């Protein structure tokens, strides 16, 4: 680093009051700081929504328990779902994309730094708005509280007659505002990737993380917008007396379902594709091999991007669609499993014959592989319309999608935390605490969600407040609750690890994992300008080329 930069750094470090520090963070347009703020904000909501999950699990621990009232139970599962999807999963993934994409393409910032800050604050205020409903939901009518209509808010539950007060309005506006933030961020991500790459980084040489975030960004543009449109219609219905979803005036409740799931199912892929991106960066480094089948990986991702747009109604088999619709959505849902399977084989192919290093990030990646596979298999079961008629809206579905979101998305996210924390903070996360976190989380996860399939098969519907004894559901619910607590303890260890390692962790250096992408070529944490001179690349693994000038990748690509 040049002496100028050193001077700037010391000036930054030299005693600034907390007010100046706070002002610096609030007004920042730096992609790294915004990325950290996205991640920190999502972690806070992760803890809040995790508590809601624990409350739900305590209520269900035994039959006829009355830990909370049915009304509160409805609010808990609504807030848990809405928070986890819109204010945990999306911002945390945007945070990583924000932090990593410019570094990986060798740029100094995103294409539109101010739009980036604006999008972050939109999302942040969306989350605050949602939680303000606990206080302000009763509004002028003196009725209502936090939203209680489920995270998909089916009509006519949201009609003014059934949802008095402002609870549903808070839900609608919070989700819509954060949606605007998501669209802004994704416009930024796409523009950064297409317009800010360093010299030599052709599309063919972009790291897979960048490629996959490009596809994710494109999907967000097409999937979040229908949700925004549907929310506008809902607001027209609720505030202006419109009839979009008003069956009394000829409107249709089913069309809300369509509009919601046109967003809702691709959303799953919006969340999982960045996780595939983490896998595609971490697995090669810890297998000491380049990724297996780079072009196929890109092709499969683009393919998922397209096919996943046409599978939404497999969430609606139970509402009675025509047999043609059922057949169509069954087939498309099964087709989308093919490119996903290709990816799993690619990661296995990368590990095959590699020199595996079983550090915590890799452990989470291996956990992801197994659990995501099982999640995919139950997904294929549910994609079959007749099977879904039996098990739609049962705990089997709950177990399935938690396998995707916790076993897949969250595990990949934990891998990403352990992998990139040294870059973000300059310190390594503790391996010992990491192993405790991993094993406790694996045990807790399987205890909660493996058993949860069975009450589903035995007919336990989702979203019920309590249940009768003697149906064979008790033991599985008890085990799920115990597992939820173990996951909670593991998460506490994780958060403790994040905090303690920031102060006491071993110094990371620029490149602790001996990795190959550009973010590891700069210091940890990177300076505000990322790169003193803009790098030039000649292959997919620029740092390999640098470390092995006698045998660079560029000869083979």
């Amino acid at each position: 680093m040049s002496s100028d930069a050193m001077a700037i750094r010391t000036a930054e470090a030299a005693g600034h009051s907390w007010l100046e520090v706070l002002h610096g963070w609030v007004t920042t347009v730096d992609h790294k700081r915004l990325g950290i703020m996205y991640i920190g904000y999502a972690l806070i909501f992760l803890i809040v929504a995790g508590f809601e999950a624990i409350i739900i699990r305590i209520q269900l621990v035994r039959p006829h328990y009355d830990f909370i009232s049915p009304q509160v139970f409805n609010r808990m599962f609504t807030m848990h779902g809405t928070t986890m999807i819109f204010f945990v999963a999306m911002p945390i993934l945007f945070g990583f994309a924000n932090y990593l994409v410019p570094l990986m393409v060798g740029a100094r910032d995103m294409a539109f730094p101010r739009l980036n800050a604006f999008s972050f604050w939109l999302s942040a205020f969306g989350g605050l708005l949602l939680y303000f409903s606990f206080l302000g939901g009763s509004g002028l009518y003196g009725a209502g509280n936090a939203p209680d209509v489920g995270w998909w808010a089916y009509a006519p539950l949201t009609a003014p007659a059934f949802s008095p007060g402002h609870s549903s309005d808070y839900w609608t506006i919070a989700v819509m505002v954060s949606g605007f933030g998501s669209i802004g961020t994704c416009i930024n991500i796409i523009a950064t990737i297409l317009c800010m790459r360093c010299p030599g980084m052709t599309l063919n040489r972009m790291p897979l993380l960048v490629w996959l975030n490009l596809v994710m960004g494109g999907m967000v543009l097409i999937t979040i917008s229908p949700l925004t449109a549907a929310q506008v219609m809902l607001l027209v219905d609720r505030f202006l007396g419109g009839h979009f979803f008003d069956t009394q005036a000829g409107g249709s409740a089913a069309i809300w379902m369509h509009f919601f799931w046109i967003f809702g199912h691709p959303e799953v892929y919006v969340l999982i594709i960045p996780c595939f991106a983490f896998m595609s960066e971490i697995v090669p480094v810890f297998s000491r091999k380049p990724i297996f089948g780079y072009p196929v990986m890109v092709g499969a991702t683009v393919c998922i991007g397209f096919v996943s747009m046409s599978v939404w109604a497999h969430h609606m088999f139970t509402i009675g669609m025509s047999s043609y619709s059922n057949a169509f959505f069954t087939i498309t849902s099964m087709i989308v499993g093919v490119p996903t399977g290709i990816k799993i084989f690619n990661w296995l192919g990368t590990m095959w014959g590699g020199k595996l290093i079983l550090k915590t990030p890799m452990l989470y990646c291996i956990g992801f592989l197994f659990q995501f596979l099982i999640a995919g298999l139950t997904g294929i079961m549910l994609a079959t319309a007749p099977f879904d008629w039996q098990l739609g809206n049962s705990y089997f579905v709950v177990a399935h999608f938690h396998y995707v979101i916790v076993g897949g998305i969250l595990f990949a996210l934990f891998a990403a935390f352990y992998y990139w924390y040294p870059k973000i903070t300059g310190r390594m996360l503790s391996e010992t605490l990491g192993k405790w976190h991993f094993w406790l989380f694996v045990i807790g996860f399987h205890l909660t969600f493996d058993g949860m399939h069975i009450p589903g098969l035995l007919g336990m519907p989702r979203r019920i407040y309590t249940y009768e004894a003697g149906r064979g559901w008790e033991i599985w619910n008890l085990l799920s609750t115990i597992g939820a607590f173990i996951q909670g303890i593991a998460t506490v260890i994780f958060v403790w690890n994040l905090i303690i390692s920031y102060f006491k962790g071993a110094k990371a250096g620029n490149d602790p994992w001996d990795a190959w992408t550009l973010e590891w070529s700069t210091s940890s944490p990177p300076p505000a300008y990322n790169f003193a001179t803009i790098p030039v690349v000649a292959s997919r693994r620029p740092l390999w080329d640098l470390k092995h000038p006698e045998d660079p990748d560029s000869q083979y690509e």
Partner: protein
Amino acid sequence: MSAITTPLASTPGTWTLPYRGKVAMACLIIAESAIFTIFVVAYIFYTGKSLSGPMPRDVLEVPIFYTICLLSSSITVHFASRFLEHGKRGGFLALWFLTIMLGGLFLFGTGQEWHRLIYEHGLTISTNLFGTTYYSLVGLHAFHVTVGLIMLLIVLLFGLAGRLGREHTARVEVLSLYWHFVDAVWVVVFTVVYILGR
């Protein structure tokens, strides 16, 4: 502390990437198209499903004049940015002003139509499904026209203040891309509401 910043290969001779403004506007247009698609689908799905009148064929008149206004503003905005590219300030300002007038005329037409529907036919957004879908779709488009007009006006003010030069052509073209999109959406809305929907 020093970062590894050695150039890893010689700089390629030419390294050009697309202009970020155009890419971002293209992305915004994709997102907006998805929003409009949902409203258009709702309009088509609910065509003829209103339980009570007034019905579209009784009250809607085809706004041919205002449609011509809006569509021709796409042409004027295109040639305005050509003038700017060649540094002809007068021609740019004249055509830019004309674009704003044509857009404003269109908005006036929409307002007139709404006034007629509300006061003569008693059709509001809460009257029936037709009212709900019609005002939402046409209103969403009119909202986009309004936003476009505000942005066009800002550029006009900059132009009148003499702060606009050839170097701003790329940015002005990004805005005209948005304006073309608003016009293209009107073609769809026009077809669905005034031709198919009647």
